[in-house]
């Protein structure tokens, strides 16, 4: 187990930020950590990285209790904080060497050159950090998080504020570099989480409301299912509305998006309907609930 959180609670004064949560992440897993702002995900991540005290519960990284041996657990973690704070007056190479020094590494020069090459910032390494684009600054942050070859990588909104090209670049860098590492990844871009993560933990008001694979969440967590059917001919909307299992229907040209309480039953009904009315179906498919829909359902109200 790379990360283990058991009955963790954190309060700020009278306010409970995280309320008795438990989860674990296996070695090599990439897990998305989602939740609305203020849900408690940053507090949880900060506690795992060791700079917020564990008030109640147990937090372990690679089997090391964070509260008991923070220094050792920090050696196992590479952390890219939200907003990626950097010493902008330093040069890129100088900064990475400084971070390597903090970790007490040996062969700092060669390790720095390696990570610079791996992250793809060789052309910028001689520049001051303040002169870099946001995408390159993010790469520098990643280089600093990875210089000591950590087993666990914690990324707090790593693509926040980047343009679409930079997002794709950073996403690819993360994908490449996270091989053989355990990654806890927080983001508000749900498509990104879908693209990168094996599993998703959703936290809301300090409680974990979902902890499953994305496919499983999409299957189970929406009460309503959606079917999209396209006919070659135009069909009377009222006739479709009168079919059994149809809850709600919207039309775009000859395509009908139907909300239902039973997708399997409705599919049979639609096929029967097309035969009876001599209609040609060009496509008929179940529309999977997006992660966004799942997220909204679990975190609103």
């Amino acid at each position, binding site marked *: 187990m790379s990360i283990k959180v058991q009955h963790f609670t954190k309060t700020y004064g009278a306010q409970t930020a995280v309320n008795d949560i438990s989860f674990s992440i296996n070695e090599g897993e990439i897990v998305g950590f989602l939740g609305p702002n203020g849900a408690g995900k940053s507090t949880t991540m*900060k506690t795992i990285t060791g700079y917020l005290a564990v008030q109640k519960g147990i937090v372990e990284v690679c089997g090391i209790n964070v509260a008991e041996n923070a220094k050792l657990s920090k050696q196992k973690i590479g952390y890219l904080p939200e907003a990626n704070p950097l010493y902008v*007056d330093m040069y890129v190479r100088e900064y990475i060497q400084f971070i390597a020094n*903090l970790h007490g590494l040996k062969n700092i020069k060669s390790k720095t050159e390696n990570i610079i090459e791996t992250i793809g910032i060789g052309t910028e390494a001689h520049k001051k950090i303040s002169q870099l684009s946001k995408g390159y600054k993010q790469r520098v942050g990643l280089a*600093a998080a990875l210089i000591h070859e950590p087993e666990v990588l914690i990324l707090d909104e790593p693509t926040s504020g980047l343009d679409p090209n930079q997002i794709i670049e950073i996403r690819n860098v993360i994908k490449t570099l996270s091989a053989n590492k355990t990654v806890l990844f927080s983001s508000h871009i749900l498509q990104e989480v879908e693209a990168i993560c094996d599993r998703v933990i959703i936290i809301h008001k300090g409680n974990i409301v979902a902890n499953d694979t994305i496919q499983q969440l999409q299957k189970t967590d929406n009460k309503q299912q959606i079917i999209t059917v396209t006919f070659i001919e135009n069909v009377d909307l009222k006739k479709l509305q009168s079919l059994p299992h149809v809850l709600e229907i919207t039309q775009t040209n000859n395509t009908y998006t139907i909300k239902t309480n039973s997708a399997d039953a409705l599919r049979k009904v639609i096929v029967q309907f097309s035969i009876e009315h001599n209609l040609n179906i060009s496509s008929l498919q179940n529309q999977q609930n997006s992660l966004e829909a799942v997220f909204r359902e679990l975190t609103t109200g």
Partner: protein
Amino acid sequence: MWSLLQIELFKISKRPRTYIAFAAIAAIVLIFQFAFKADGISYVNLMLQGAGDTFELDKSKAINGYFMCYIILNTLLIQIPILVALVAGDAISGEANMGTLRLILTKPVSRTKLIGIKFIASVMYTIVLLIFMAMMALFLSMAIFGVDDLLIFRVKGDESQILQIAQIDVMWRYVAAFGYAAVALTVIAALALLLSVFADNSIGPIIATVCIVIACTIVSNINVPIIDKNIKPWLFTSYLVGWKGFFYIAVDADNVPIPGSMENWGAIRNSLGILLAHIGLFFGAAVFFFRNKDILS
């Protein structure tokens, strides 16, 4: 450790506010030197009004490099705490503001070590500031005004005194005075660092330090017996100007100054002890609170 300290000093060197102190000291010293070069005799005449009839001296020789340094220190060492607070007050809060405190604390560096290094860096800055002040106020003044015996005008109780220290007996006193000033200013650095632990921006601890120094200085100057007895001995501001003690030369039965002596070494030693206790108290509190603080910035 050395790497962290290097970076800390590097960060201090990169901040424009660091150089405000050097510019302010240079400007004040140069103004003093210009004014005394142009019309220093008037100042000496004014000082001699009380004792002029009984004390014979060559007024032109009275204004020399040693004398200038003493006058400048009298003024500057009261203002310098503000300049020290500019840097020490920013040590933790400035990093909290930039978010880099979080970055550092997620690395395997202990909080005690981190705040210790910040304190050492602040002390080093204070010492560099004092060395710069010595260069400007002492050595530059010696180059401009030359060297002679040092005359000190002192008010002791109800009487005015003029103390004369032979030029050969002066330099060690300045070394000691600057050393004392370094300890006194380290108290300010420790206080500013302590306040910096509680803030997420630099302005608060800097202003708070200055306010505390001003308030305590005012109390230190209130001459009411109950305050004299119960409060003043515990205020660090009562000892900030203790460096003057090194220049209060002891005299023999014939009122002749004794070379290499001080009137009251015990008082200076006591003052140093109290200042060091304040440093320990402020720094100890800073470490305690920083170790137990949730970093939310």
